[in-house]
Structures are given as structure tokens and as C-alpha cells.
């Protein structure tokens, strides 16, 4: 236990320790910048946490560089944006029935009627209180679950089992995300395939480059993800607005009566509801691919069923706001459980956290991070320890700092955000497009980055228009290198046995589950 506390202490200290060993508050400051940006971005219709993270990543890398010293400031800012955006999205949802972020949609059901009754301030403070508390709850779950899962995985799973786990994760994600799981899984495989371009494992030169030397180092990762996740979504939204003459932010713009403040007695009465919503959000968030909307819907239904006055839901009851906000915010922390313990991203925000880690420094997520290597000082040399574990606890520390900023400055900022909902989405989207293209150019070496982002945007556009979920494509794209190393290693270790993945009972169970999910997808496809 002493060793655990030693690592926790080192992790906390590392956030405040500069390169020369002196005190630094840069990561703390960057977390604050991130939280404030996130709250602001969350309140603008058409923007969301992942959008802001995608745009911020290249800018942050340009500012801080690629060294290990850059990891905390960059990650701190991204984590702050992720957390801040979950809070900010509720403001326009409550004041103008215009959700700032997609996950705040259900907040409009009771938040807006509350505001219409003259309790806007109370509704916003309820959303903030539930959201931040739900987020804190899921962070605690992350701090406990991630090391426990990682240690179990590292102890029990070998190369074939880890390969099977990634295959199972992809099948699960394809099965639960979107309406077309077969095409989702095909998209996942396509994403994996595309990520192999330019890479090589055995020193025989780059592969699949079609004779283009520019692809020798592989496709620019950030630009590709920026294109397929962000720019394609911008294009689809712009076309929808153009075709439907629909601008989500075109509310009448009248700010409702703010009304009285939320009392501490009312806050205390909300705690059981927050606990229920946060538990649902944490459970849903820990599964890769299931998003905030599912968590909020389940939580809202559950709160309605548990209520003595279910008919009041939808007419402006605080319990409705509590249910949706505590659940959708609890997803954000829990989504990092598969990221930190297994290196498998579960949603778009997690994709950008992984991208940041892969772009900067030596740290990498995965079960190897949580190995409690005994700390030994060798005289005249250095200290032997697991530096990755120190970084992991440093990341946990920054999440706690983000929570603190969310409690304090987040609450203050939420009260003055109403006017941001008036920014038309039709103007915001071209601006996001311009910033994204500029970020792709500056981050990934010029027109190659721009071209990659554009090509991936077209791929993403077509996939979205065909109702194929984008997430398996992106996750496949990110996981392919890891899966290739694992599969090759397992195959070699088995002595070239073609059934190398079926020799281990655990891997067999995971693959059987994958086949079951596949079967379910086919049945679903034939039924539809």
C-alpha cells in the first residue's frame, strides 16, 4: 500500500514540478484555460467538446512542442475542454431550448420549462451542480477501476487474449453505435486498413504507398482524424442547414426571467437523484462506443419511473434536469476507463486524448501503465520507477484540478453564457471548417496534412450520409498498429500455428462473443 501512496504522491508532485525541478503552475493554468474554453464552446450551438479538442490539439502542439514536458499542459487543456463542454451545453438548452452540445438535448425537456416558469437561474444551477457532481463521481470510478482492470488484464491476458479483446471491442462498438452494425464493422476494418498505409513492420520499406514518397511515414494522424470526425460532420451539418433552411440557433432570443437561486436544502434533496444518474452514466460510459445520449435517456427514464409524480416530468421539474445532466457528465470520466486501462478509446473525446498522447512524449496508454514497479534509488545513477504510472496519477490529479475549476469558475461563467446561443450555426460551421483546415496544415506539414484532412472528410461525409457510424472507423484507425503488433507477436510465439487465436480459452470466449455479436448484427439486418 505504501508503494501505491508513493506513486500517488509522485503523480501529484509531477504536475507542479517544472523541467528544472522548480515549482510550475503551467499545467494548472492550462487546465483552467481548458475548462473555461470548454464551458464557452459547450454553450455555442454546433460546437462540442470533441470539436474544440480537435482544433485545440494542433494549436497546443504548436505552442508546447512534442517533448515530454509538453504532455501535462496539452493534456490538461484537453481534459479541461472535455469537462467544461459537458457543463456549458446545458445553458442554451435551458434558456432557449437549443442544446449547445448533442448530449444536452434531453436537458431541454425540463430545463426550458423551468426557465419559462421564471426559474432559469435555478435550472442552470441545478444543471451545474448535477453535472459537476456526476463528473466527479465518474472520475472516482475511473481512479479505482482503471488500475484494477489494467492490473487484471496484464496479469491474465497474453498476446492472443489482448488481440481477441481488441477484436471484441471493435465488434461491440459496431454493434452498439449507429443503426447499421455490419457496415459499422466494415468501417472499422477499413479504418484499420487505411492506417497501415506507409507503415512497415519488417524493414522492407513502406507499404501501400502507391509510389507516393510523401506517404512513406504514414498518413498524418491528426489531420486524418480531424477530417473524418470534425470536418465531415461540419459538411453534413452545413448541407442540412442549406437544404432545410434550418438554423438550430434561430430562437426568438428572449432571455427568460432568471428567478431565485438554488438553495442548499434543494441541493441536498437532489443527491439521491444525482447518485442514480451518475451511476448510470458511469456504467454506460465505461463501455466503449455507447454515448452520452444513451446514458441521459436511460437516466431520465429511470428517474421518471422512480418518481412519485412521473407525469410532472417534461413540465419543468428539477429532477428531470438532475437525471440528464448527472448522467451525461458522468460519461466523460468513465469513458477514460477503457482508454487508461486498455488503450481503447470509447468516444470521440477519448480519441483526441489518445491522439495527444501518441503525438507528444513517450507516454502511452494501456495496461502496462499501471505496473507498480518498486521504487529504487540507485546511487550516482537515477531512480528506477514506472514513469508511466507517475504520469497516470498526474493525469488523475489534473482531472481533479479541472473539477475544482468547474466548481468555481465554471459556475460563474455559466451564468453569463446565454448570449452565445444566439450565434448562428450557419456562421459558426464555416468558421470551424476554416480553423480545422488551418490546424491540419500547420500541424501536419503543409498541403499533405490539408489533403489528408480533405480526403478523410470526404470519406467521413459519405459514411455519415450512408448512416454508417464514424466511430468504429476512427477507433479501427487508431488501434490497428497495436493490433498488428499483438497479432504478429501471438502468431510468432505460437510457432506459426494458424489457429493461434483459438488456443487460449479466454481468447476463445472473447472471439465467440465477437461471433455472437456478428450473428446478432446479421439477424438485426435481416429483420429491419
Amino acid at each position: 500500500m505504501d508503494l501505491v501512496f508513493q506513486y500517488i504522491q509522485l503523480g501529484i508532485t509531477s504536475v507542479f514540478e517544472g523541467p528544472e525541478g522548480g515549482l510550475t503552475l503551467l499545467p494548472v493554468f492550462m487546465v483552467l484555460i481548458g475548462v473555461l474554453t470548454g464551458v464557452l464552446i459547450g454553450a455555442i450551438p454546433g460546437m462540442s467538446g470533441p470539436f474544440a479538442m480537435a482544433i485545440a490539439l494542433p494549436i497546443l502542439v504548436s505552442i508546447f512542442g512534442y517533448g515530454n514536458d509538453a504532455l501535462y499542459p496539452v493534456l490538461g487543456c484537453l481534459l479541461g475542454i472535455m469537462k467544461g463542454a459537458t457543463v456549458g451545453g446545458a445553458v442554451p438548452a435551458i434558456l432557449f431550448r437549443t442544446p449547445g452540445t448533442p448530449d444536452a438535448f434531453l436537458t431541454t425537456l425540463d430545463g426550458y420549462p423551468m426557465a419559462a416558469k421564471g426559474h432559469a437561474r435555478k435550472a442552470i444551477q441545478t444543471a451545474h451542480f448535477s453535472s459537476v457532481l456526476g463528473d466527479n463521481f465518474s472520475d472516482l470510478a475511473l481512479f479505482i477501476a482503471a488500475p484494477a482492470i489494467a492490473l487484471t488484464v496484464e496479469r491474465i491476458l497474453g498476446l492472443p487474449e489482448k488481440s481477441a479483446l481488441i477484436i471484441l471491442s471493435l465488434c461491440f462498438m459496431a454493434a452498439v453505435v449507429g443503426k447499421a452494425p455490419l457496415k459499422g464493422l466494415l468501417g472499422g476494418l477499413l479504418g484499420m486498413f487505411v492506417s497501415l498505409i506507409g507503415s512497415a513492420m519488417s524493414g522492407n520499406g513502406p507499404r501501400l504507398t502507391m509510389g507516393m514518397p510523401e506517404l512513406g511515414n504514414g498518413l498524418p494522424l491528426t489531420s486524418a482524424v480531424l477530417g473524418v470526425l470534425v470536418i465531415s460532420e461540419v459538411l453534413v451539418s452545413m448541407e442540412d442547414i442549406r437544404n432545410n433552411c434550418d438554423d438550430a440557433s434561430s430562437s426568438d432570443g428572449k432571455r427568460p426571467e432568471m428567478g431565485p437561486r438554488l438553495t442548499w436544502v434543494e441541493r441536498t434533496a437532489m443527491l439521491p437523484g444525482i447518485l442514480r444518474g451518475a451511476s448510470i452514466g458511469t456504467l454506460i460510459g465505461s463501455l466503449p462506443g455507447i454515448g452520452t445520449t444513451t446514458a441521459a435517456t436511460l437516466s431520465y427514464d429511470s428517474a421518471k419511473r422512480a418518481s412519485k409524480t412521473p407525469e410532472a416530468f417534461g413540465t419543468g421539474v428539477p429532477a428531470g434536469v438532475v437525471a440528464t445532466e448527472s448522467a451525461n457528465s458522468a460519461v466523460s470520466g468513465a469513458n477514460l476507463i477503457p482508454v487508461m486501462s486498455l488503450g481503447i478509446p470509447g468516444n470521440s473525446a477519448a480519441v483526441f486524448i489518445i491522439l495527444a498522447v501518441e503525438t507528444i512524449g513517450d507516454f502511452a496508454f494501456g495496461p502496462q501503465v499501471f505496473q507498480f514497479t518498486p521504487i529504487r534509488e540507485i546511487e550516482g545513477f537515477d531512480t528506477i520507477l514506472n514513469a508511466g504510472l507517475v504520469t497516470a496519477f498526474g493525469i488523475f490529479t489534473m482531472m481533479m484540478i479541472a473539477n475544482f475549476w468547474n466548481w468555481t469558475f465554471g459556475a460563474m461563467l455559466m451564468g453569463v453564457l446565454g448570449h452565445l446561443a444566439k450565434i448562428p450555426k450557419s456562421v459558426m460551421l464555416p468558421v470551424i471548417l476554416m480553423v480545422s483546415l488551418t490546424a491540419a496544415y500547420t500541424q501536419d506539414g503543409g498541403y499533405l496534412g490539408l489533403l489528408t484532412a480533405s480526403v478523410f472528410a470526404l470519406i467521413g461525409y459519405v459514411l455519415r450520409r450512408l448512416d454508417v457510424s464514424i466511430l468504429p472507423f476512427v477507433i479501427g484507425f487508431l488501434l490497428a498498429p497495436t493490433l498488428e503488433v499483438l497479432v504478429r507477436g501471438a502468431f510468432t510465439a505460437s510457432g506459426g500455428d494458424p489457429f493461434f487465436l483459438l488456443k487460449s480459452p479466454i481468447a476463445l470466449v472473447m472471439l465467440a462473443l465477437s461471433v455472437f455479436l456478428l450473428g446478432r448484427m446479421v439477424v438485426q439486418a435481416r429483420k429491419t
Partner: protein
Amino acid sequence: MENEAREGQGGSWNLWLGLGVLGFVALCLTVWFPQDIGSGFMQKNLTGRTVPGDAFFPVLLVGLMVPLAILLVFSQLRPRPGASGEPVGHVGAGNLVFLIQVILLTGMSIVLMNLTGPAVVWLTNKAGLTAFSGYRAASATFPFNVSGFVAGGFLLICGFIRLTCRRLSLLHVLVALGVVLMLVLVFDILLENVHLPPNADL
């Protein structure tokens, strides 16, 4: 009626996607992989041991695509009574027109980004205000280095606002100009070692 037509269209997309994937796999296995992957499916390493080659994982991946594509085709050709196969959207002529507009607008903006800088240098040289040998020589000097980005970026934002809203007001123009100038401030003035388009490709 329209829905039925759209469902039928959607169904054919499933079929074409499935067949397209099968065609892609065939192309990979017969043409692309043999010509563009240095080592084969298996290879001998320096110690003489047989290990997976660079084609090992790509072949596994495209191999896994085959049953999925067949299942997609199968679920479309033989759906249960009253069903129409896996849900699918569609990409129609309207979408293609929109994409062509997007590509043209982006292309024109990039061309403008590339041409404006040299044009400004040529003009100032002609007016006797500068004596640069060309744009490359001026590409680190403000405002020549950002002139292309400002012109191209301004066109891009205005063009996309016009495309989305079907109108362009003075406020939109001012927003576009403000955003481009803000990007210049962030990327060119506040950040070091960052090149705005087209300066990283000279």
C-alpha cells in the same frame, strides 16, 4: 411513395457497398498487395525463422472484410418478409452537387492563397516599394507572408457562409475578416515555427 423509393434506393446501396468491398478485396489481393508490399505474407528473418511478413496483417484484414461484405449482400438479397435489409442512407445527385461546390470552393481558396502572395510581391516590386527576388524571399516578411492566407481564408469563410445560408451579409463579411485576422494573430504572431498556408510548401 417517396419513402418506398428511398428504401429501395437504400437497399441497392447495401448491395453496391457489399459488392464494392468484395471488388476492393480482390483488387488488393491480386494487384495492390503484390506490387506495393515489400515482403510477402510470411518471410524468413535474419535467424532463418519464418515470421509474418508485411502483408500478413493487411491480408487478414481484407480477409475479414469478405464474410462481412457477403453477409451485407446476403441480408439485402434475402431479407426476412417485410424487411428491407440493414438500414442505409443514400448519396444522391444533390449531395454530389454539394460536394462539387465544396471541392471547387476549397480549391479556389487554396489557389488564391498560393497566388496572392506572389502577386502582392510583384505589385510592390513594380511600384518600387520593395525589391524582393520573388515570393520565397518575402515569405518570412509581414504582411507578405500572410497575404495569401488572408485572401484565401476570407474567400473560404465567405464562400461557405454563402453556401450554407444562401446569402452573404455585411456582418458575415466582417465575421470572416475577423476570424482570418484572429487566426493570423494566433498562428503567425503568437506562435513560433508555424507556417500558415502556403508557406510550408515553398
